[in-house]
Every structure is written in structure tokens, then in C-alpha cells.
């Protein structure tokens, strides 16, 4: 007999369901008076936050090209200098005025999600090469059995995108644009397609 390898299994995922807002954004769902504000709601920046202000907006489309009106989207990103506000960030100290995490429900009538944030700096890949600026997305909703992970890169970072270690190893180049948010002025539009010809690249992270 060898020593047993005793590992637990991750709890199996279950869909967030149609009422994920009750738990994650109760004020948005009409349940007021329990939490003062919904966690992760509102602008991600204050007057002291360093970096270029941007607005990220978009829709999540299903396989019939209908926007989801019950999705919940969370984002996680580095600060303007490329540092994460996390204890596991060991390279330096992130901007104390920027959490880097936010959560927004799609609008109940239209499905649009909006994040008021800053453009992140570049973060090194595991081998030290710099990744292009990007925002990590996590999407849950009724009908999604396990949260979906993707990344949004920026259309105004062509040179950085071209040398990004993740983008550059994607075999089907025709799919790469599904990861690029289109920047016009200070607005970056990022639509997520769950299925179809333009199905967004999702990652097993």
C-alpha cells in the first residue's frame, strides 16, 4: 500500500437561476433595507483612483441572438499600473482607491450591462512576457450550469494584443476578435455571444 492521496472534490456547480439578483444584487431586484448598497454596484472609481476613465458596455446574447435579461456579470482587473488589489499580488502594492472587482446585472428591460472603470495596465504572463491590457469576465445566468470565463482586450492596443501570450496562441485567428472590446472615445463595447458564428471564446481557467 502507498499513502493515500486524500483530496476533496470541488462542490459541483449549479445554475445561478432566474433569481440570482435576490442574493447578489437585492436592491436591484427590489429587496431594499437588507443591505445598504448592492456589493460591486456603482462606479469602480473615485476622485483619487489613478488611470484613464472608461465605460464598458455590452449585451450577452443567446443562440437565438436574443439578449439575456437575467444575467449577472462580474469583472476583475488590474489597476492602471498592472497590479491586482489582492493578497496574492506579490509584485507591488495596487492603487488603494481601486478594488478592481465589480458586479453588474444586465438591465431587466434591455439586458445591457455597464461598468464604470479605468483601463488596466499590463500584467506579466507566467514567463515574464507582458500580457496586453485585459479585463477578466465571469458570466452567470439561468441556463448556464457553470459560470463562464472570458477576457476583454482593447481595440486600441493593437501592438500589445499582437504580442499577448494568450491571444497569440489561439489557433483559429478568426475567433480572436470575439475577445476584443471596441473602443470609441471612452466607451468600450464588448458583446458576449454564447453561441453562433461569433461565439465568444471562453476559457477553462
Amino acid at each position, binding site marked *: 500500500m502507498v499513502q493515500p492521496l486524500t483530496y476533496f472534490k470541488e462542490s459541483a456547480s*449549479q445554475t445561478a437561476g432566474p433569481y440570482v439578483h435576490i442574493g*447578489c444584487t437585492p436592491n436591484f431586484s427590489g429587496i431594499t433595507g437588507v443591505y445598504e448598497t448592492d456589493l460591486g454596484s456603482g462606479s469602480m472609481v473615485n476622485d483619487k483612483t489613478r488611470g484613464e476613465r472608461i465605460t464598458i458596455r455590452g449585451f450577452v446574447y443567446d443562440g437565438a441572438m436574443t439578449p439575456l435579461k437575467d444575467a449577472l456579470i462580474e469583472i476583475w482587473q488590474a489597476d492602471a499600473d498592472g497590479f491586482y488589489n*489582492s493578497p496574492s499580488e506579490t509584485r507591488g502594492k495596487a492603487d488603494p482607491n481601486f478594488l478592481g472587482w465589480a458586479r453588474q446585472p444586465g438591465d431587466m428591460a434591455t439586458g445591457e450591462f455597464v461598468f464604470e472603470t479605468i483601463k488596466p495596465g499590463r500584467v506579466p504572463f507566467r514567463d515574464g512576457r507582458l500580457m496586453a491590457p485585459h479585463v*477578466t469576465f465571469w458570466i452567470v445566468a439561468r441556463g448556464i450550469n457553470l459560470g463562464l470565463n472570458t477576457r476583454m482586450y482593447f481595440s486600441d492596443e493593437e501592438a500589445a494584443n499582437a504580442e499577448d501570450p494568450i491571444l497569440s496562441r489561439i489557433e483559429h485567428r478568426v475567433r480572436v476578435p470575439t475577445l476584443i472590446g471596441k473602443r470609441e472615445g471612452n466607451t468600450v463595447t464588448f458583446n458576449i455571444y454564447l453561441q453562433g458564428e461569433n*461565439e465568444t471564446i471562453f476559457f477553462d481557467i
Partner: protein
Amino acid sequence: MKNIPPETSPFFPRDREWHPPAFTPGYKTSVLRSPQRALISLEGTKSEITGPVFGHNILGEFDNDLIVNYAKPGEMAIGERILVYGRVLDERGVGIPGALVEFWQANAGGRYRHKKETYLAPLDPNFGGCGRTITDENGGYFFKTIKPGPYPWPNGVNDWRPAHIHFSVFGHGFAQRLITQMYFEGDPMIWICPIVKTIPDENAIKGLIAALDMQNTIPHDMRAYKFDIILRGRRSTFFENRKEGN
């Protein structure tokens, strides 16, 4: 907090044979919401192994007591009073301190407080249905609530959800982010639920069923259910692959 350095190594790969697949036609809504192309593997960069930290200052006094957190002063939600408790662990069995755990559920009659809810069961004026807490230094958590009721839902013509509580959990890395549901020991509705049946492995389903724990009941007040939540583990040591000369 203990004076130990933060962990910075990548997480164990997610076992996608254990989780429900994206496309599960028995759960109809998944049909048009399931990506059809293969996921692209992306082993832990800084963007995945880091994650936000939430302090206890976000919590209100009654955030983990759903019996009173929406009730009028002096009143309480109607239903079977229960204490739900357990630990948030990782796959190595290590307790995860400081983990934000959020939960939401239907009332005792199986009705959610939501604009889009159409079930005819009545709302309880003293029950909102949401709560949250942050795990202690050993990964432990608890909250008080009423046992939610089962309810019918539009999928098949006679599909019912078993009594359940939804959980959203943050670990220490964004790659650990998880939403799941807790079921109750002995409920025959579990095994005929199309959403439960999206999980291919019977043992994975059993891992979502909370045990009735009569040792931890509060006498003359509430019974206890124990529900441990397991998040992805991470490598204990991190050896970076580097090309020679780097």
C-alpha cells in the same frame, strides 16, 4: 490573522466531468445558452490566481439571519426555523478564511420575492430571502433561516424544484468563483429535478445535500443542517517552467 505569506500558486484544473456540462437538454434553458465550441485552456496567470478581498465592515448585524433581516420590528419570517452551518474548504482540505458567502432562497411556501416570479404561493411580508457572511479563520460560517419550500417551474409540464438554497462563494482567487445550490437530506424531490440531473456524477450530487445535524440544533428553537463547500485547491509549491538561460 496568522502571519503566513499569501499563496500565489495556480489552482488545480477544474474537473469538467464532475461539473454539469453546458448543454443539458433536460434543462431546456441551457439549450440556447450553452457555448458549443471547446473552451480554451488558460492555466493560472496573475489574472486568475488573484481575487478581491471583502472585509467584515461590509456586513450588517443581521446579514446572516434571514428570519429577521427583512422582517418588521418584532416580527419574524414564517417557516421551519433552521441553522445552516459548515466550512468553506479547498480541495486539499484547507479551510478558507475570509471567504464571502452569499445565499438566497424562496420562502416557506416556495415563492421568491422577485418581480419576474409568477408562482401563486403567497409572499411572506417578513421574508426577503437574501443573506451573506464571511468565513472565520478556520473557514467556518453559519446563518439562520427558514426552510424554503419546493415549487413548480416552467420546464417540463410538471417539473418541481426540490427545496434548496442558492450559494455564491468567493475564494482567494477569481478562478475559484463558484455558484451552487444546497439541498436537504431525505428530500425525494432531489432525484427527479432536471437541474440536479444536469450533474452527471451521483457522488457530486450527494456533495450538495446538507445533512441534518441534531447535535448542533438549538434546543426549542431550530434544527441544524451542515453544508461544507469545497472550492478548487491550489498547488502547494510553485515551480515555474522556464526556458534555459532565463
